[in-house]
């Protein structure tokens, strides 16, 4: 009975995700598609929680639904009112439809029908077996910052690349909405709360769901809120300091990695006694860079270098 209920719940969630995804893709109205996409992100977050992936649930809610949604909505604001729909031939539509359906069918057959698909027991999973040596007790953080830290290094490099891209091609947007009194109240309550929560997520990531990415996304939300509330200089430091924030994550990562090589070990082999501290150091740098990059992307670009510098920033105060 219990099992049946779970299956029913699973089917409802999975179908809902599929239908929402289809509506996002097939919607002709971009505004509707973006709003549906945000809802889709929240649904995915629910699914991650169901599938015993709380780290992902947090990250999806903050990054997937929250910040991607914010980026898309702000991009939408400048979309021309009526975008002409290009004329497509039936051949185009059905050609690619048939193609992807065949692809899906073949993949489903290979994954689920033909012999295959091995799900090992987690009791002999090397990640759990070696968790004690990793310096943290949250297995996802252990993979991200110790076992497969090199992946994360390259990922932070991807983020850095996009930050330079935004600096190169974007111009800072002036916000149009006048900040009402309520927004001020909301800001005064939420911004400190978000900053505290971000530090908490960063700290707790070592032994419970959380970590640098979630923390960075939450901090970025604080910066975006300040921007919306008409205080862009408070949310973001001046262009010079901004550069330091953008490089913080990758710099910490690389310097730690190269420093560990000094005593002959391979790249990113932390000395046993220092593991937790080094991981926290790298994560702190990553939080600053992630937050700065995402706020920068939301604002649509950096202020030109000659502009007077803003005073303090939350990122700096952290």
């Amino acid at each position, binding site marked *: 009975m219990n099992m049946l209920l779970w299956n029913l719940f699973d089917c409802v969630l999975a179908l809902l995700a599929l239908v929402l995804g*289809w509506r*996002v893709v097939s919607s002709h109205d971009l505004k509707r598609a973006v709003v549906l996409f945000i809802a889709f992100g929240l649904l995915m977050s629910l699914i991650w929680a169901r599938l015993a992936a709380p780290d*992902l649930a947090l990250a999806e809610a903050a990054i*997937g639904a929250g910040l991607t949604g914010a980026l898309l909505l702000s991009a939408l604001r400048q979309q021309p009112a009526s975008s002409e729909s290009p004329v497509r031939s039936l051949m185009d539509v059905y050609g690619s439809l048939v193609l992807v359906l065949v692809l899906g069918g073949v993949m489903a057959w290979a994954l689920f029908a033909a012999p295959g*698909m091995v*799900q090992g027991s*987690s009791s002999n999973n090397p990640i759990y077996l070696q968790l004690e040596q990793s310096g943290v007790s949250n297995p996802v953080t252990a993979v991200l910052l110790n076992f*497969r830290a090199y*992946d994360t290094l390259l990922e932070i490099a*991807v983020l850095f690349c996009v930050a330079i891209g935004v600096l190169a091609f974007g111009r800072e947007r002036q916000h149009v909405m006048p900040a009402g009194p309520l927004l001020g109240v909301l800001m005064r309550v939420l911004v400190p709360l978000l900053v505290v929560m971000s530090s908490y997520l960063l700290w707790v990531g070592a032994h419970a769901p959380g970590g640098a990415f979630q923390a960075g996304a939450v901090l970025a939300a604080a910066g975006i809120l300040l921007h919306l509330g008409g205080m862009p200089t408070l949310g973001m430091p001046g262009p010079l300091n901004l550069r330091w924030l953008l490089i913080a994550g990758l710099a910490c990562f690389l310097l730690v990695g190269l420093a560990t090589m000094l005593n002959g070990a391979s790249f990113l082999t932390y000395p046993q006694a220092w593991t937790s501290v080094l991981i926290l150091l790298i994560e702190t740098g990553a939080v600053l860079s992630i937050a700065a990059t995402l706020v920068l992307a939301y604002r649509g670009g950096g202020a030109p270098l000659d502009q007077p510098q803003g005073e303090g920033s939350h990122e700096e105060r952290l």
Partner: protein
Amino acid sequence: MLSATLIYGLSGLGLFVVGLYGALRPESLLARVLAVNVSSAGVFLMLVALAYRGNDQLPDPLPHALVLTGLVVAISATALALVLERRLREWGDD
């Protein structure tokens, strides 16, 4: 195989395919970026469904970490696409 793995795996596969279809259509850039995001969510769902080991066992954390990496890569790519699109549109207006 667990039924949850099957259900969510198929759903993820469906999302991957649907997103791919959307990304290959000659629509506006923003619509195609949305489709790519849906598609990558589908691939992530396949991975996480694979990692699930039932309610009484710990899941495989490796796919979770991979998906977390993937999520950050996805938002990075989206951010770059949006800033280029805006620049392109401004250029068209001039």
